[in-house]
């Protein structure tokens, strides 16, 4: 990462680092939050910012996970997971730990916009 950062800086660019959780509930805490590895990497480096998208994604997924936890019927659970793609309370496609659906994508885009503006000095 340091080598990449130096290359980007040498060309006059700026670096934004973000970690996309896959799945969000199994994230390694070493990477998450203001004390995480990448946040510390960027600390004190000019033109470098870490943008946390995990917390907003986790908050967005919380209602779905509550609903899943309260569902005891395996068939109903399976249905919830399978329909996750179009679930406005879900962030991933049909499988819980796979790729992001539109809802998850929007949350990431919104979070990154703030980080990019910050690194651009806007």
């Amino acid at each position: 990462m340091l080598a990449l950062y130096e290359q980007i800086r040498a060309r006059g660019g700026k670096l934004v680092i973000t970690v996309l959780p896959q799945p969000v509930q199994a994230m390694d805490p070493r990477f998450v939050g203001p004390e995480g590895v990448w946040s510390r990497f960027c600390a004190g480096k000019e033109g470098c910012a870490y943008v946390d998208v995990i917390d907003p994604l986790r908050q967005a997924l919380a209602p779905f996970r509550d609903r899943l936890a309260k569902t005891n019927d395996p068939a109903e659970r399976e249905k919830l997971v399978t329909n996750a793609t179009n679930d406005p309370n879900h962030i991933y496609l049909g499988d819980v730990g796979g790729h992001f659906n539109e809802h998850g994508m929007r949350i990431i885009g919104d979070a990154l916009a703030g980080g990019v503006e910050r690194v651009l000095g806007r």
Partner: protein
Amino acid sequence: MIPNQHHFDRFLKIPEDINSFGFRGGEWSREKRPGVERIAVLGSSMTYGSSVSLEKIYTTILEERLAADGVKSEVFNCAVQGYRFEQSVRNYERNVFQLSPDVVIVAFADQDVQPMDEYGVPPKGTSARGSPAPSSTGAANSDWKDWLKKRAPENPKPSWAKTNKAQEINESSSRLPSPRICCLSGWPPRRGCSRSTSKSAPAEESW
């Protein structure tokens, strides 16, 4: 990725077009426009937006959000499906820097930063993508071998493989003369394969 491809996602519903740069999206200009920030995003399939239409990928949303906040920008989705961090760095070094981005966003899943060995095999105790294999409810399963067995049970050996027949075939094939591979130009020189001995194959010479 191969440039200028038009194909669909795995469900054959969402078009996933590859532009002339070999990345997902419409055509981009090499020339930088004044007053427009260029943002390149490196990543894997999660950024590429597998099974998500182009206008709903977070790179497009990022561009829209910045425009709403008064920041003119072009966001390039330079992600490649299956890429790990090391490969994304190579991607930047070889291709992405040519777009002269003002900001480079590195977006990866935590498993993407684990080192690859020469065969691309992930570290022990991880799934094919490198992370603890998730169960159907998303909980981490540390014993990936059990998880793999459940998903892909070991195929029973075919009946012929249980006998010595397979070994016999192997042994008999090793007794056959090895095929002679000749280069038409006579180079590199090999015994029985020089240009002067190519009389035995005049038809090949005429090629």
